[in-house]
């Protein structure tokens, strides 16, 4: 079942078309990545899903009906720019946000305490936000997003500001939520996280979708033209290569892409052996999502503004 459907959605600000005919569907129980360079129209898209903005054209369906304010209670939204009331106690703040999502006071309080406990933060309840470190504040903010156990969770750069340990905790929570049937919309610039978490993605640039689909399929379709090589001895064979795009080149290790190069992988390997390089490893791999991102975005004209 599709939890979220966008159908030809358009949103303009004055003469600027922030979102230009975007359509996609998000299945229940999946993690869906919304990717794109800065200013691509991701935040505007998310704001329309959360009913903060109304589309100029097109339709957004949530849980099988046109989006309306009642849906807000079933959505949890973690904006990229975080913020909490500095002078209010953690527990009061969580209760308030929970109540705004339709929870009763007592239920919100119970849920808040439970999550503070789960996230190793059970002693923070009576502290004011300004007494907490940045990372602790991020945790509180994350709890406020999931407190009301939303069916659709929208996370915009959820891992920024967290240390590696907490990033792992967060990833685990996200995957647990997914397993329990919740749907997650994830927007991030960290492609590694997308590869780890997302089932499907859309890549947006200049308000339009330039790439979409299953992460595995996208990588497969992009072709195996990504070469990883380790060797000893002379690397002079590398200097003969033209039209090859080097990604990492060190003395004994190189990564490059063959995109439209004049050589096949076999020819390069042959050349290396001819030039007396001792090849330890030669592998044709799928490109990383990072590579695909850069490649596709550059083809459509880089960042906005």
């Amino acid at each position, binding site marked *: 079942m599709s939890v979220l459907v966008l159908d030809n959605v358009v949103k303009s600000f004055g003469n600027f078309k922030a979102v230009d005919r975007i359509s996609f569907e998000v299945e229940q129980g999946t993690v869906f990545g919304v990717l794109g360079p800065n200013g691509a129209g991701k935040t505007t898209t998310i704001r329309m899903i*959360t009913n*903060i903005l109304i589309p100029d054209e097109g339709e957004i369906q949530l849980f099988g009906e046109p989006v309306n304010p009642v849906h807000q209670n079933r959505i949890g939204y973690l904006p990229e720019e975080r913020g909490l009331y500095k002078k209010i106690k953690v527990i009061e703040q969580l209760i308030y946000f929970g109540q705004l999502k339709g929870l009763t006071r007592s239920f919100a309080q119970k849920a808040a305490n439970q999550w503070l406990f789960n996230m190793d933060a059970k002693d923070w309840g009576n502290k004011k936000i300004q007494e907490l470190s940045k990372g602790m504040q991020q945790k509180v903010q994350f709890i*406020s997003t999931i407190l009301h156990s939303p069916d659709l969770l929208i996370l915009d750069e959820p891992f920024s500001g967290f240390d590696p340990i907490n990033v792992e905790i967060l990833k685990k929570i996200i995957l647990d939520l997914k397993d329990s049937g919740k749907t997650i919309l994830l927007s991030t610039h960290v492609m590694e996280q997308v590869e780890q978490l997302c089932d499907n993605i859309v890549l947006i640039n200049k308000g339009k979708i330039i790439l979409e689909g299953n992460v595995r399929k996208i990588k497969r379709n992009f072709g195996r033209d990504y070469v990883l090589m380790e060797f000893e001895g002379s690397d002079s064979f590398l200097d003969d290569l033209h039209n090859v795009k080097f990604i990492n080149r060190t003395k004994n290790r190189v990564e490059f892409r063959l995109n439209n190069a004049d050589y096949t992988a076999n020819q390069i390997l042959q050349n290396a052996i001819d030039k007396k390089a001792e090849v330890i490893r030669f592998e044709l791999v799928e490109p990383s999502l990072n590579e695909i991102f850069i490649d596709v975005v550059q083809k459509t004209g880089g960042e906005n503004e």
Partner: protein
Amino acid sequence: MSENTSKIMTIIKHEYITKVKTKGFIIGTILGPLAIVIVIGAVIVVTMLSMDTGIKKIAVLDRFGKFGSQLVASDTARYYLTDLKESELKDQVRNEEIDGFLILPEDILENNTATVYTRGGGGIGFIESIESSVEHFSRIERLKNAGLNTDVIDIVEKGINIETEKVTEEGVQKDHTEAFAVLGYILGFAIYMFMFIYGSFVSRGVIEEKANRIIEVIASSAKPFEIMMGKVVGIGLVGLTQVLFWILLMFVLAFAGQPLLNSFISEPAIMTPGMMTPEQMEIQAQFGMVKDFLGSGILIGFLFYFLSGYFVYSTIFAAIGSAVDQEQDAQQLMMPVSMLIIIPMLFISVVMTNPDSTVSVILSLVPFFTPILMIVRVAATQVPFWQVALSVVLMIGTFFACIWVASRIYRVGILMYGKKPSIKDLIKWVRL
């Protein structure tokens, strides 16, 4: 309860409780009346001190020769007779030996003119008091010349004090016109303070939510209109709590304070029941006034104009707060709105002294001025019913218009970051 009322109620409760629990509010509510008493006391002391320093030494050169000595006798602290020449007196003024001199010319009765020479200034009150004394004595002189005897002149010159009584359905009562005019001033001033202080609470709250990026989370949970009105109503209720607490305090003082004060003064051994000492009668009168106020429509008027004024201005303040990224940027947009609150303060004494004049009526019916000026009139005079009704209708209309405009600005403003908007931008957002 529907979805929307429960959300707006949540916001109202949150705004109310977080504000009421602050130390600032509790201290302000308790110490507020004390501060007011101190300020009023200070004003009275300063006024009395400034009255004393007004006396100036004036030499009287009596060329007319009829009432110079009587004039001096009427106020020896100020006047003294002199035989010096005009030019010598001028020198003395120039050398600051005397403050000034008054010439009563021979033809004073024909030309109706006497001249005061000073180094300049002295104040209108100073000139007026000389004028009225000279006028008084020259009038007696004229009456004498017309052949009236001193008995008749005494009768003519007898002054009258006007005591005011007001006739109401309950019969004739002691009228506190003067005291109530001052009361009107105080109430008008209180509304002015409330609109500014609580209005800025609203704008500061809106800016805090925007600057700390809380607003986007809240906006994904409730409609912008609910968020704005929840804040405005919640903080308004905080103000109402404070006002009601103070009114309650007045009730307690008025009804419990009088017997308490009486018990300090009375001497039960000598006094027969039902009789009062003059001190007690004075206290009785004072408390009677407070009771009159508490029982009158003034109180209801005050609450209405206070609330409606607060709503009109706080919604505008909310809109301005939503448009800027930080408090400093708000100043420029606040200016014209602040002017609307300050302008009635410039007219408040005019309205207080002449509450029934056409100017007062018109000014008090301008919606943005109504909260401050109408309460002054309501206290100071019997405002015709149609004027009160009209002002109520206009205030409610303005209130809804302001909510409409402000919520349209707010809706756009809370999501706009980066550039400092002009008034022109705000107008554009309303139309968006």
